[in-house]
């Protein structure tokens, strides 16, 4: 069929707009990389890039789990405190059980907290915000209580060097992070089990009627998120060789912002782990850039709050538009 030049041009333009809409976070990431390389002469040094990767590792691992939860239409506000608790457990039990066993205990505790979250949300049917808020306060009290609000220093040199030791030039912790990204992306996007998380998030009632065990997927998502938070806590404790009740203070906020920035909708039913990776990278670079440019911590607090509101507004308008177009072509009424 004959296509005129003008048609071709408009189609190219339309494709370009579609591309931007789909990969906005990618564009944002690339833009930030260019901006920071131009305005800061330390940004592109290998040391800084390695630091950046290590910095985003903690929040990134938590964000993988959070992607699952937000895809199912929920939220987990307790992850930051689970990171702190897990770091405290790892370092605190090191002298009694050895680092490997204490790490395993921390992971199991994380899994238990997540399962508790999931049970309260799926079985008792409490709003996920309230459930995870309550669990968050509970875990915070527990962590502050067992440490007496003081940080603990680690004593095991092998454990202390694990996260920062490099293999193929990349720190171990970041290698784990990248491997998890790839595995979880494959699981969510290309396996039938993974696809069911989208079904549950899109419409719980319909999924239940279609014979999907909705509760199982909900509990699984929350348990996995807390497990990831515990893993992030272990790796962070290994990196700084300290267990502290106040680390992970902003983790919840950073993680939620990066997941939504990565294209996962708060309404549930859509999103990818790869998008989350770029969201995490963007936020990490923003943080890194602000540090390099010498912007105070105070302003970073405000910027986090503003970013959260902006990202939610963006999400809202995007969903509103999709709904409208779906209505127009008759998918929903």
């Amino acid at each position, binding site marked *: 069929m004959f296509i005129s030049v003008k048609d071709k041009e408009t189609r190219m333009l339309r494709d370009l707009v579609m591309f931007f809409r789909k990969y906005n976070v990618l564009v944002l990431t690339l833009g930030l990389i260019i901006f920071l390389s131009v305005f800061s002469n330390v940004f592109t040094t290998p040391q800084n890039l390695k630091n950046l990767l290590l910095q985003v590792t903690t929040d990134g691992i938590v964000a993988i789990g959070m992607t699952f939860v937000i895809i199912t239409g929920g939220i987990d506000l307790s992850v930051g405190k689970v990171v702190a608790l897990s770091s405290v457990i790892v370092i605190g039990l090191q002298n009694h059980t050895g680092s490997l066993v204490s790490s395993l205990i921390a992971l199991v505790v994380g899994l238990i907290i997540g399962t508790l979250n999931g049970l309260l949300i799926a079985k008792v049917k409490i709003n996920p915000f309230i459930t995870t808020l*309550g669990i968050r306060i509970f875990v915070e009290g527990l962590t502050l209580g067992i440490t007496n609000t003081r940080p603990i220093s680690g004593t095991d040199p092998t454990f202390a060097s694990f996260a920062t030791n490099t293999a193929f030039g990349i720190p171990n912790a970041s290698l784990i992070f990248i491997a998890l990204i790839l595995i979880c992306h494959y699981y969510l996007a290309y396996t039938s089990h993974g696809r069911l998380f989208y079904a549950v998030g899109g419409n719980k009632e319909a999924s239940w009627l279609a014979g999907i065990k909705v509760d199982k997927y909900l509990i699984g998502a929350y348990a996995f998120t807390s497990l990831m938070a515990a893993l992030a806590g272990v790796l962070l404790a290994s990196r700084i060789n300290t267990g502290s009740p106040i680390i992970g203070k902003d983790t919840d906020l950073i993680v939620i912002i990066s997941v939504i920035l990565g294209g996962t909708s708060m309404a549930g039913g859509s999103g990818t782990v790869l998008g989350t990776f770029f969201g995490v990278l963007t936020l990490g670079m923003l943080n890194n850039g602000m540090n390099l440019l010498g912007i105070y911590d105070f302003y970073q607090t405000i910027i986090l709050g503003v970013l959260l509101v902006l990202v939610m507004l963006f999400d809202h308008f995007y969903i509103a538009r999709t709904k409208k177009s779906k209505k127009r072509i008759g998918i929903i009424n």
Partner: protein
Amino acid sequence: MSELNKTQELNKYHSFNLTQIVSQNMIWMVLLIAIIFFSFTSPVFFTVSNMMGILRQSALVGILAVGVTFAVIGGSFDLSVGMTLGLAAVIIIKMNPDNLFGAIFSVAIALLMCFLIGVVNGFLIGKFELNSMMTTIGMKYIVWGIILIYTKAQHVWAPTMYPSLKAIGVSSVGNIPILVIIFALTVIIGQLILSQTRFGRYLYATGGNKTAAFLSGINVWRVMMTSFIISAISAGITGIVIAARVGDVDPSFGNGREFDALTAVVLGGTSLLGGKGSVIGTLGGVLLLGVITNAMTILGLSINYQLMVKACVLIIAVAIDVYFSKRQGNKNAS
């Protein structure tokens, strides 16, 4: 069938129904049982000075909780109140008013700031229908950052505060602290607004079913905005009272007070699904929380473990609320 249902409905409202009376006044009975129980466990609990202490402590949570009740009845959460009250307190203390004009001016500025925070919250949540919890968490961080910049992250104190302003926090009329009088006034005014004004009716309607409220001609987003303004202003009043009481604060001291307020509101029988609840119930919740906190302190539980107990109380209260609403839903459906 429908005749039968109608008779049952009428019977439900007109006959003496023990279960209903118990379930409606559960909070007061639990409060009574708690007071009796703790009086037996500890000799210092049931003394006049300790009871006054509980009232004074409860008043600080209570003024805040009355405001939060409005937001929750409207079907949303307000988690920014903790930082909002911090901002109000910091403004009063940083301005350090030493004459009448200065005192009035600083109070006005503090309340104005809180009003603005309420407006922004209400606009984002009411107009754009953003998730209230996430929006107010974002607002919390924004206000926190403003406080940190304003105080340069330093501890602030007011050495020469105007005596009459200071009196709000420390002195008492007869035997009753002014703090408690302010709390009582807030409860009365709040309850009157909820049950006697048009706005109160609209708020219940909005919280119960937003679409239905909109279709019946209620300006939904303006109602929600008003509820957020009320909760922010109540946070402002709490902040001013605390500033007058202690005279020096940390930049992040308001952090976490929103959980106490939310717990008290839920304990008082206000449903988190919206459309149900009362300020009088919140009063009961505040007193129960005050009694539990006081008893834990007397029994020597550290403040960190108190946090854990409070979290359990919050979750259990919400679970009970969900259980009862589900049963009611089933009844209506059948």
